[in-house]
């Protein structure tokens, strides 16, 4: 048992009464689960629970590669990119850095799961929070893969992709500016990262990537679980009755985007399938989804702190809806 020895010696070194270490709990738990497997599987007999479990696993499996790319990028930013790089690349004036960072979101192909750790890594490297937040919001919404998938999903409405790009970028930049005016950087409670500095750059990279993956991954599970439960509990029929009222339709689509927590690379296909709804209300769905959803709120409060998330998510929701409605009214 070479694995448990260090655990015990580490516990001993802190001069505390012996209590079961995390590794022991994990081992016992896994044994218990193996013994009880038959009973656990029996619980999942109902088709509704089966469907919920499938949706839960699929959200996690779909998001994991993007999360891995995100934490590898954030690890690389922490380990290999000197802090001075960002001061050179981004304009000195924060008011100008916000739109630049927002447009930079157009080049990172990834979904929202990737951009949370990347934005966290940027703030930890001294990038102005307003600029990092503009990037956080724009990257998953306007990157090439997302825009192309929107074009493909709406073959008869070519303006949809353009409207999505404009409305998302506008919302991201407005939020960045709002943060400069009204926000307070002390609301962001980033975990200290000095324990993630290793012996070498390569070691720092590993420590940061490991930490960010376990952290963001845990919150991804929270969001995926919530989305899966709501997916099988909320009857879709309710939606069709509200589709006829233009105001209700916008509210419903914004709510649906928050609840479903679909990856931004897939949401265009879902929006395209909701044909009862007006194009503008579906644009609201596409603009809100990558910026505010259950999975993201959980991941953001994990990365930036709860104080931040309770202010940031509602504000973003309002700005995103307004931006989408205005652009939709203009272009669609």
């Amino acid at each position, binding site marked *: 048992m070479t694995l448990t020895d260090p655990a015990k010696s580490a516990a001993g070194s802190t001069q505390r009464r012996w209590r079961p270490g995390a*590794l022991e709990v994990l081992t016992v738990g896994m044994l218990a689960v193996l013994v009880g497997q038959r009973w656990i599987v029996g619980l999942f007999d109902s088709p509704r629970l089966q469907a919920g479990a499938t949706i839960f696993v699929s959200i996690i499996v779909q998001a994991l590669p993007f999360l891995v790319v995100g934490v590898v990028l954030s690890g690389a930013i922490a380990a290999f990119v000197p802090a001075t790089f960002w001061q050179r690349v981004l304009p000195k004036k924060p008011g100008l850095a916000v739109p630049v960072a927002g447009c930079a979101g157009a080049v990172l192909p990834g979904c929202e799961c990737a951009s949370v750790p990347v934005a966290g890594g940027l703030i930890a490297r001294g990038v102005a929070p307003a600029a990092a937040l503009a990037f956080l919001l724009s990257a998953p919404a306007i990157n090439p893969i997302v825009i192309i998938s929107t074009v493909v999903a709406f073959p008869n409405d070519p303006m949809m992709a353009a409207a999505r790009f404009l409305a998302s970028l506008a919302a991201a930049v407005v939020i960045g500016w709002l943060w400069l005016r009204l926000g307070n950087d002390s609301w962001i409670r980033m975990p200290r990262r000095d324990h993630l*500095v290793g012996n070498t750059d390569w070691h720092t990279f590993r420590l940061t990537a490991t930490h960010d993956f376990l952290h963001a991954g*845990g919150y991804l599970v929270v969001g995926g679980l919530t989305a899966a439960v709501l997916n099988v509990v909320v009857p879709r029929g309710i939606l069709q009755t509200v589709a006829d009222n233009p105001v209700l339709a916008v509210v419903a689509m914004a709510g649906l985007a928050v609840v*479903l927590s679909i990856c931004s690379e897939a949401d265009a296909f879902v929006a395209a399938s909701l044909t009862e709804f007006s194009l503008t209300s579906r644009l609201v769905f596409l603009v809100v989804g990558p910026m505010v959803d259950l999975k993201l709120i959980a991941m953001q409060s994990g990365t930036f702190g709860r104080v931040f998330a309770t202010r940031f998510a509602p504000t973003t929701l309002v700005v995103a809806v307004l931006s989408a409605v205005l652009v939709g009214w203009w272009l669609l």
Partner: protein
Amino acid sequence: MVAVKREVQGVLLILVGGAIARIVISGAYINYVKPSMKPYLYVSAAILLALGVLALYDAVRAPRTNVARVGAGAGHDHDDGHGHGSMGVAWLLLLPVAAVFLVAPGPLGAYTATREASSVSQPKAGELMPPLPPGDPVPVPLDSYATRAVWDDGRTLEGRTVELIGFVAPSPEGDGWQLTRLALACCAADTVPVKVQPVGDVPDLPANTWVAVTGRYQPGGGTQSATAVPWVEVDRIVPIQPPAEPYL
């Protein structure tokens, strides 16, 4: 809350990486995401396993000497500035691992399909439907059949005998069943059903039975609407093995 030590971090990473590797190797991943995700899942699993093994290596090689240099990372995570155990959330990663190894939930089917109206994708405006390939009967994917029937008034289906594959899902109206497939854009959270109504001599079959239906296009299911359910006049219905890829 229990803080997450280096060696536990390693075990968690290996479990998650192992779960991903398992569903890719066993092929179960196509129940959850598109087949094209395969290489990305392999790479993700490899990265997670490597990070996990290296974290264990750190913990085993230098459980105490590391403390000074790695700060609180190796020795006492409860002091690492997160507040107490905010990394405890990492434990939740055991949930998908358990779901994959113990429950191994199968593909979505009739339950999901009956909750939603059919969704027939519309071809680009002015784009002509290509004629069906030769063959009698000619195998036609269910979504292609529905699109040809609904958005092209079945023009390209006239006079042809087609073979459609799908599973049995009870009609939302309550009597009979519809030949159904779930179309997946990205992951199983976003599936939409495509449904075709078999008409004529249709036997009762249990939900989720996979069948091959041989028959001919029959107008009557409604056209020019994404939620229309086109008809197929049945010649023959044969139960089949589920296809390798559960979703369209």
